Every structure is written in structure tokens, then in C-alpha cells.
């Protein structure tokens, strides 16, 4: 067996997925990652840089890059585009005032060549807050219909507080990536 084939085999066995998580500041990205990993979410500071979490999810190893969304930091998002299998865009569904910002940042991101192959999961977070928009309303405001037809995407309502919707979102994302990358299995 040649070296290359060994490596390829390991890679397929490893089943690593690289997931980039972005969205406006305060949308709940860090809370979501900690919650899904079963960690304490009671003291979270706004992300000044980024966090990497490696979690095993079903039979896959997810490398989740949770990048801060404060304005100052958004310019650095592009440092993390390389080799992204899945993109999670998190929306604070209760922050009505900034939905325009949210839409513009998302559509800018989707223009990015290096992300063109990535599956897109949109979390309409904070559904537990009274007055939050529903996922379908968010879909409309974000103009998701206007997205490139080749893009694999899904929007899921969730709450990082209660955990509702998180597994549904991750299940879809992981399955969608797996069906593209690990076709041979």
C-alpha cells in the first residue's frame, strides 16, 4: 500500500469536518457551541478572537471555529474560510433592529469563493424570547430565497438556552456534509 493511499484511508476514517460559525456579535454562537458540548454556559464573555472546539458528534469529529462577531473583528473572518466544510450563521431572532446588518453581512459572506462549497445552516436563535421572529420570518428578512440555487442550506429555529433545535440543526449539517464528502462509504 502506497503512502498516499494510507493517508487517504486514514482521512476517511477520521471523518473530520471543519465548521465555521459566524454571525453578528451577541447572536449566541459561543453559547450554542458550549451547550451542544454539554458545558456550562453561565459565564460567557463576548469573544475577543475565536475559540476552537473539537467535539465528536455521531461518528464524526467536528472542528468548530467560533469566531467573534463584534464589528472590529468581522474583518478577520476571512482568515478562517479555508477548507470550511460547513458554515453556521447564527441570528439573534429578537434583535429586530440589526436584521439589515445581519442580512448584509450574510450575503457578503456568501459571495466568498472559498465558502462556495460549504453547506449552510442558519440558526434562528433565541426562540425562547418573547417577541423573537420565527424561522420563516427570519428567512424572509434575510432574503434566503435569493441565494445561489446550488447552495445546500437550511434554517432551523433554536434556543441555546433550552437546547431546543440545536440537535436538529447539527444533524442536518453533518449529514449534508457527509453526503458530499464521504460518498464512498
Amino acid at each position: 500500500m502506497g503512502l498516499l493511499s494510507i493517508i487517504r484511508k486514514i482521512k476517511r476514517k477520521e471523518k473530520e469536518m471543519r465548521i465555521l460559525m459566524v454571525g453578528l456579535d451577541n447572536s449566541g454562537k459561543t453559547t450554542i457551541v458550549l451547550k451542544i458540548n454539554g458545558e456550562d454556559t453561565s459565564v460567557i464573555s463576548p469573544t475577543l478572537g475565536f475559540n476552537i472546539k473539537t467535539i465528536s458528534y455521531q461518528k464524526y469529529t467536528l472542528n468548530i471555529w467560533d469566531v467573534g462577531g463584534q464589528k472590529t473583528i468581522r474583518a478577520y473572518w476571512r482568515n478562517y474560510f479555508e477548507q470550511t466544510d460547513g458554515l453556521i450563521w447564527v441570528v439573534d431572532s429578537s434583535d429586530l433592529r440589526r436584521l439589515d446588518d445581519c442580512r448584509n453581512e450574510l450575503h457578503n459572506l456568501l459571495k466568498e469563493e472559498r465558502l462556495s462549497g460549504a453547506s449552510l445552516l442558519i440558526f434562528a436563535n433565541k426562540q425562547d424570547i418573547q417577541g423573537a421572529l420565527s424561522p420563516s420570518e427570519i428567512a424572509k428578512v434575510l432574503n434566503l430565497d435569493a441565494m445561489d440555487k446550488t447552495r445546500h442550506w437550511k434554517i432551523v429555529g433554536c434556543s441555546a438556552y433550552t437546547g431546543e433545535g440545536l440537535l436538529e440543526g447539527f444533524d442536518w449539517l453533518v449529514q449534508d456534509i457527509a453526503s458530499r464528502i464521504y460518498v464512498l462509504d
Partner: protein
Amino acid sequence: MIKVLISLIGVLNLLGFGQNFFYRKNWLPESDASNPSSMSNQNLDPSIHKKHQAMLERLSNRHQARARSKESDSCPSFESTDSFLARFSELKQSITSELTQIEQTPESFTKADLDNVSAQVSELEKLVAENSYHLPSYEVRASLKTIADLKESLEKVALKLVPRKKFSFKGKASKPSQPVAAVEKVKNEKPDLVPSETRSFVLDTSGFRDRKGEVLVENLKGKDMGEFMLSDLVSCDVRLMGRSRAIFIHRLRNCKVYAGPALGSVLIDDVEDCVFVLASHQIRIHNAKRCDFYLRVRSRPIIEDSNCVRFAPYCLQYDGIEDDLRESRLDEETGNWENVDDFKWLRAVQSPNWSILPENERMSDFRISSADG
């Protein structure tokens, strides 16, 4: 001021793993993996024993070198590309040479040795993470590529060492994953992209907007906990009793805002000449000028695009506030009111944009009640 600075740096170092790589100066892992004494050493074959000795020595040297460089390093690592590159290549070399050794005589190494190398790779990854903000994006990409290559070599070597057992990377922070247990029924299986009825988006939000020169009082007690919005207020005095899930504050001039605890975050944007008395898990301040903040906060308050803002501890009183604070897990003074992160001033020296409100200028306990209106 100097005292403040020291305590600030102290807090930075205390930040846990997984939070804010960027600011964490002390990036060495605390795990046993970097501690030479924890390495496996049961094998009694003399030649192997010698090898282990050599490795221990090497590790210990490196450990000391690191400790030294940490001491002399008065600026955080992220301020210099050169020092990053030096540290990166030092670590990389040591990983490569260990891998080479293991590869040449796999029979004299154990899984613990591999785990140790793996921990070093994670360390390297963290180093890149922390420094990514000041590094040219080329360096970031190149470093990430190097790490990917190292991982590949490590796996290759692992295959030789433990041909049957699968070896996999474990991030230092990764616990066995324990995803949220209960998945409740999910609302929108297939999102309906064209909602049948478009509702006005501001309808459900409670709050005050477009007011001038008024005293605005609201008691949230007994109401469904939701968000509360204050926007476009001039010369108003806002008194908010009870708990909320989140507070949004936008475009305030010359106002005073006294509020009970918010369970999630308080988001502030575009405020001038105001005083805020707030308690919340997170407080995020944007575009604030000449404002004083009296805060109780569980995480670190942040400012961005702000200046002449000053901070002091929370000082609000109303009937039942103790219960409200306790139920929001904000009863304890964390001292975080003074641990402000300025996103426009990412250096270890004190930001010129904010300061601590001198004690003799602070207001004393301020009492509000429903009868204030």
C-alpha cells in the same frame, strides 16, 4: 491606575481555556502532557531507558526555556509577528524531531509518547489561534497548513506504533461529547419561506421609544420575561424594575437609565451623555460617548468605538431587588464591572477610551419605586 492594570492582566491570565484565545497570554497547556515527569517510563531495557532519559531532558529544557520566555515576555505574544514565528518554529522543530525518532524506532515508544506529541500539536494550534489577529493572513494560512501536515505525520507514525488501534486527535478542551439530552419537538421542519401573514416586526417588543424629557417607569414583575427596548430617548429618566431576558438600548441622549437584572445581555448602541445602572450576564457597549456605567456583570463588559466612558459598581435599590438579582444569578459582586475589554484597543496597556469612575464622584445607592412616575 497601575494597580488596575496589574489586576487586569491578572484576570487575563486567569481566563479559562476555550474563552478568548486572543487575550490569553498564558497559553501553555496545564495538562500533564507537557510535564516530563508524567511520561511513561516503565520500560526497563537500558537502551530504551537511555532514550527516555534523553527525551525527558529535552522536554525539561524546553519547559524551562518556555518558562523563561514567559517571564521576560512583558508584551503579550500577539504584538509581534517575529516572536510568534520564533516560537512557532521552535515548537514545530521539537515536534518534528520527536516524530522522526518515534518513526525510526517505533518499538521503543509508547502511546503516552504519542499523546504527548499530540498535545504539543494542539498547543501549536492554540498559539496560531491566539496570534491570528495580528498575523498577516498568509502566515495564518501557512501555519495552519503546517499544523495539518504535522497531524498527518503524527497519524502516519501512530499507525506504525499502534497498527491495530485507531489513534485520534483529542483537543485539550474536548470532553466526551454530551450533546443536549432532550430534543424537544422542533417547530419548523420545512421553513415556510413566504409567511402567510407578514407581521410588523416591532409589534411584540415592549419598551419606550421617541420620548423627550419624561420620567419613564416600568415594572416587569409578573410579566412574561422578554426583551425590553429603549430607543430614541432625549433627556429622559428611565426606571425599570424586575427581570428581563435582554435589554436593547439605542440612540439615547442625556438620559439616566436604572434597570433590574437582565438574564442574557444588554446591548447598547449610540448613546451620549448618559448614566446607566445595569445588571446583566453580558454588557456590550458600542458608540458611547461621555457616559457613566454602574454595572453588575458576570462576564467581562466590552466597549467598541466608544470614548470618555467610566465604570463603577452597580448601586440600584428597589423593593425585591435582592430576589431578582438572586434569581438571575447576579447576586454576587464579581468585580467584573472594572474588567472592561475595549475592542478598539487590543493591547495590554490600559485603553485611553475608558476609566474607572473615581469613588468620590460616584453616586451612592440609588432607590427607585413604581410610584416614581
